[in-house]
């Protein structure tokens, strides 16, 4: 088997990605190795750690053959890659939340809603579907501050535990989507290295399914 170049996301998905690669028998990677080096070779493959939002860039341009990335990143990218497998870890939800006491919480909102979000594409799709007129304000961080400072009426943001929302007195109004980690592949690599990419995809799919069953048991 020839080496695949795999992009792994720095941040909260890194441990899960390394664990799953090990469970699938693809590579034995300790996430801490990436503290000192950004490129790690293991089990015949080359791994790089990059920012999650850069993973589709590396993969689309062919700098990496495949990558592991959260669906929330894919919502916002226009990069063309194959989305091969739902890896079923790193789950978080995209929710619409408003301050306690907002008429939105009682479903009594009329007029244009101002929503702060880090996910303008996913937000636009969601509000198109529910038929609400919104003005989206794109922020790059600390979205939960927007209602308290009157920057926006509500936020559309990712939550895993709901703690940040609660700490800022924000009430979930609706769920706009669920994100988990995905395996993505370069368009050409899926054809020119199809045996290797498909083997990795199948192994990860099996490992993810096994863990989902164990997790449920």
């Amino acid at each position, binding site marked *: 088997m020839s080496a695949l170049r795999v992009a792994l996301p720095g941040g909260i998905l890194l441990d899960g990605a390394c664990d799953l690669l090990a469970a699938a028998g693809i590579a034995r990677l300790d996430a801490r190795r990436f503290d000192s080096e950004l490129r790690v070779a293991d089990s015949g493959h080359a791994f790089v750690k990059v920012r999650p939002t850069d993973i589709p860039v590396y993969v689309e341009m*062919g700098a990496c053959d495949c990558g592991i990335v959260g669906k929330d990143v894919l919502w916002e990218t226009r990069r*063309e890659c194959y*989305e*091969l497998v739902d890896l079923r870890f790193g789950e978080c939800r995209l929710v619409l939340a408003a301050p306690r006491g907002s008429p939105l919480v009682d479903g009594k909102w009329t007029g244009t809603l101002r929503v702060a979000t880090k996910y303008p594409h996913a937000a636009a799709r969601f509000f198109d579907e529910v038929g609400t007129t919104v003005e989206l304000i794109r922020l790059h961080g600390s979205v939960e501050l927007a209602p308290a400072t009157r920057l926006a009426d509500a936020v559309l943001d990712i939550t895993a535990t709901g703690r940040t929302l609660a700490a800022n007195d924000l009430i979930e109004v609706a769920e706009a989507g669920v994100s988990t980690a995905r395996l993505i592949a370069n*368009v*050409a690599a899926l*054809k020119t290295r*199809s045996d290797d990419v498909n083997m990795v995809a199948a192994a990860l799919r099996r490992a993810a399914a096994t863990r989902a069953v164990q997790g449920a048991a």
Partner: protein
Amino acid sequence: MSSTGRMDAPALGLGSRGRAGGFSDWLVGAAARRRRLTETFVQTFEVWGYGYIATPLVEPLATVAAGVGPARQAQLFRFMDADGDMLALVGERTVSVARVVATQLQRGPFPLRLGYAGPVLRNQALHGGRRRESLQAGCELIGHSGLAADAECIALAATALDKAGMRDVQVDVGHADFVPGLLDSAGVDAHLQRDVLGALERRDLVAVETALQATEMAEAERRLLLAFPALRGGREILDTAMQDVRGERPRRALQDLAALWDLLDAHGITDRVHLDLGAVRDWDYYTGPTFEVFSEDSGFPLGSGGRYDGLLERFGLPEPATGFVLHVDRCLDTLTRRTGDVLVVAPVQVTWAAGAHRAALELARGLHVAGLACTCGLAPGSGLDGDRSVYVDTKRVRWTIDGRAGDGDRGAALAAVLQALRPRR
């Protein structure tokens, strides 16, 4: 100038030193290689009987919109002319060829074989690593609905790449009607069919899986669809698929692919061909066999094509058509990645001492007539004073010719220089 000085605002007061973002300049060497690559493609097309045509860079927006889906339309550079008509810079050239055929070559003779090469423009987001202007060379074969036409186009694309030094490409051949036919004959309702096809086109296989799990269809057919992207291989995968597929439409697509494989084998290119049953691209545009060309050295397809029997009808001429496009700049990237940049070959330099300008020009003229690249000095060469000689320099060797020699001797000198400079075979 210091290196920080170079980062200062340029003289024109524009960003990017006066060049529009997402566009490239091609300098000496690279530009020449790009031109030669285009010529290699076009010459191969002509050898196969595809007449070269040139179409405008600008088309009415309505014309361009007839051939490309909403996603590509959003990438068009558009503008309004003085009459208020909406125009667009072409994002591909098949539509232009279709327009020409339907309006000026509608009497044929069919089948009609046409080739083209030219720039196309797409309004890609900046800083994404994608070019806004690129070169495309392609062929259209119009007026024949048989698979022999599809096979000819695939073989021609492979041959043109071969001629340009890319024999080790991989050609993935699929059929635009296989997956839609499979969904349709499996009784999947129209709404869900669109979901699945849309997801396949977006290359979102997780969404395909989710959508298929919600449908009622025969287990064998569901398995076949979920097996994408593993539905690839040689002639043998058709027999495997045939066992699982009962619907008439998908079976017809499989029979087409079997016949096409035999034709491609007769063309001698099956060493490069993979069949790819899960291929779904522009499913409302392509109507028959489709293909994409890949290389290990490129993350993007080098070319693509297929049968599009519905396009000419949109211009009032119901003729079937098939064709392909090669992405010249991606091919160039691939070649450059393999061999490195091609160095600019320094032309031969003719220099001369005072009094020998006339003899130098005569010699240079002789080299030009023989097709050898050379430059002639515009002023006497320094350090060459007084001896009335002409010097011919290459990187390796220098000849000295007496500028006062008679006609016969000068002719003999030219012949000697030509003899020495001719590339040895």
